[in-house]
């Protein structure tokens, strides 16, 4: 009896809630440490970056306009979907040279981290806002608001946990994002896009590209419709390049290059605060009459 032939998955990129191939038609081969080929992966181009930014920008209004509670439910839903596919992720992580134990730990941490940020969706505002006791007769308050489109170069070493750790705080805060996945370990990133796609996240809120940071980082840094760049590697020349090009449209730049994503250091509401603006509103308080709140 003939053995059944396994069907192999095509690893594609994720833009605007769709799974296209790169428009460039290019690919690279993801390999494990022994040099065995794991898959042909899209080598995304500048045009793919542009398409992804366009989708992300279109999604900002809808996503930031959702009730915080609704965003919380949706992040929780991603965690539910991820829990259901843990075996697939463990399999891919092991293919990408994790030990089975490390792989299991990474998927557990990734699920719990999504729950952690699901909780923050309707709480960080309470921690970071203020009612300001101005001296004049005004009601004055400051609240955080999402900065807009965030471009993220994900950590290279943890293909799932790193990706989750940088995406979750950005979308919890109502931003949308374009993420360049780990170049060496891209498999989980594409599979994670499939999880997102089945968890009520509107198309365009999260866009995931695969490819080479060395080629694409400069397009992240000089695209005029990106508000913030997050870079997770420690390459001095790249950092300087990002900082310089960011000045074109005054992008906010954050380097998460020394974070140990496996520990609690890798999760905090301050990651949410990084991609927030603070808006202050003044409103007069009428002071006619003499009644006092004296009772």
């Amino acid at each position, binding site marked *: 009896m003939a053995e059944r032939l396994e069907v192999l998955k095509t690893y594609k990129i994720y833009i605007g809630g769709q799974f296209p191939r790169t428009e460039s038609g290019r690919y690279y081969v993801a390999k494990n440490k022994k040099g065995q080929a794991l898959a042909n992966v899209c080598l995304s181009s500048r045009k793919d970056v542009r398409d992804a930014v366009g989708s992300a920008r279109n999604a900002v209004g809808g996503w930031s306009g959702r009730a*915080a*509670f609704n965003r*919380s*439910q949706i992040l*929780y839903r991603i965690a539910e979907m991820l829990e259901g596919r843990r075996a697939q992720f463990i399999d891919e992580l092991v293919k990408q040279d994790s030990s089975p134990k490390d792989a299991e730990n990474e998927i557990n941490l990734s699920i*719990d981290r999504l*729950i*952690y940020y*699901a*909780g*923050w*969706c*309707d*709480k960080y505002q*309470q*921690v970071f806002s203020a009612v300001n006791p101005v001296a004049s007769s005004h*009601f004055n308050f400051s609240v955080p608001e999402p900065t807009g489109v965030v471009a993220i170069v994900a950590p290279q070493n943890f293909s799932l946990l790193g990706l989750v750790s940088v995406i979750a705080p950005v979308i919890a805060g109502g931003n949308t994002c374009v993420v360049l996945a780990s170049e060496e370990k891209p498999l989980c990133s594409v599979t994670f896009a499939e999880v997102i796609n089945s968890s009520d996240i509107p198309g365009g809120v999260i866009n995931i590209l695969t490819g080479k940071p060395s080629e694409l980082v400069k397009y992240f840094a000089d695209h005029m419709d990106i508000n913030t760049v997050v870079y997770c590697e420690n390459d001095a020349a790249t950092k300087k390049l990002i900082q310089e090009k960011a000045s074109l449209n005054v992008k906010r730049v954050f380097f998460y290059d020394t974070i140990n994503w496996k520990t609690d250091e890798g999760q905090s*509401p301050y990651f949410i605060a990084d991609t927030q603006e603070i808006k202050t509103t003044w*409103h*007069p*308080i*009428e*002071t*006619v*009459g*003499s*009644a*006092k*709140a*004296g*009772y």
Partner: protein
Amino acid sequence: MAKAIKNNTLKLKFDTLKYAPAPESKSSAKIDAQYDLFINGKFEKPLSKKYFDTINPATEEKLANVADANAADVDKAVKAARNAYNNVWSKMPAKERGKYIYRIARMIQERAREFSVIETLDGGKPIRESRDIDIPLAANHFFYYAGWADKLEYAFPNKQPRSLGVAGQIIPWNFPLLMAAWKIAPALATGNTIVLKPAETTPLTALKLAEIIQESDLPPGVVNIITGAGATGAAIVNHPDINKIAFTGSTEVGKIIQRAVAGTNKKTTLELGGKAANIIFEDAAIDQAVEGIINGIYFNQGHVCCAGSRLFVQEPVYKIVMQKLKDRIATLIVGDPMDKNTDVGAINSKQQLETIHKYINIGKKEGLEIFESSCVLPRKGFFCKPTLFTNVAQSSRIAQEEIFGPVLAIQTFRTDDEVIEKANNTPFGLSAGVWTDKGSKVFNLTSKLRAGVIWANTYNKFDPTSPFGGYKESGFGREGGLHGLGAYLKL
């Protein structure tokens, strides 16, 4: 010369125009014939060996037998809670604690329809309200507080918040499941274990919640739900091994509890009665304000501690407001709570109906002018027509005392100062409403009114993220939001 009043309210002619019945099916409600006490993760027969009936106030039909916990049962529940606190719950990592609470939230969402139907059958509130308000808000409350479990140090900077221990919680009959959620969710998130007593007229949804807690695999003893009346509540309040008492109910009982815990180390939260001022200024959007008045006093048959039971209308718009208000009252559908068209359902109990009638008679004897809906009440069950009194004085008992029914006391005012003085002239301070087109006036009023929740151009809004609680004799402590955590923590 007085301006002629134009009234463009569309009046529905109920003589000729009738809504067809739209009853919700009872089939989704699984109610057992008898419920025992939920102690240490199991339903156990009461040591008291006694049971009482819970009935449907809209039909006076019996729904189930419910256990009547005595002091020995309370002690058993407290021991289970203490044991769970010492051995499991206080040692569990905070994020795992949170995940249990998320599970409970999800399970309530999954069974929302069943809970809505039982809430309406047992308490008499319109199915529309239990379906759209009580049950979703209860689930959301669990969902919100689940997230706080591993984030407490961000809520209280420079502190290491610690749980208290065993919390005794006593809740009222007006929002049975919602009040259980308001009590249980923050207590669990902050790491406490619980003995909760629902009200004797509305125990069923709390007992269904016990089933969910069982299914969620929450460790036994973390939440114990025991049923009974005042004596059971007193046994919880007086139990020496309880660290926290959270009570929602009347100011009268709240005062007894405050006295009873004196000299103990029990931390206390009291959410008590109210007599909220709902203030309509002449520049308000009148149609919206009239809806706000209706929602303020007739929502949930007026069984709402923050009900807008004192209406203050600025003199220039008094006539038009009254006309529109009376027209609107005529369109309120009073009757079968299970009908999806019903606006005002059944009064929760015979006893409460008697209390309301007592106050209506007091109002009449005081010489106030009464107006009531012309609706026809069902022959069976406990119902009360939406009622209002005009020509009310500050000193009138119906303007001073909480009625907890669909009875509105209406006064007028001329100036901002006058209405602030009148609104604050009450021992209560739970909530207030302000209706005006002028933002600066809103903030003047919100800074002068002595009440814990102020609604501006809206009324009776609730959200898990928003703290709720009173000033003065309306109680102390807050439930909801970041501030609701503090009630269950040593800081």
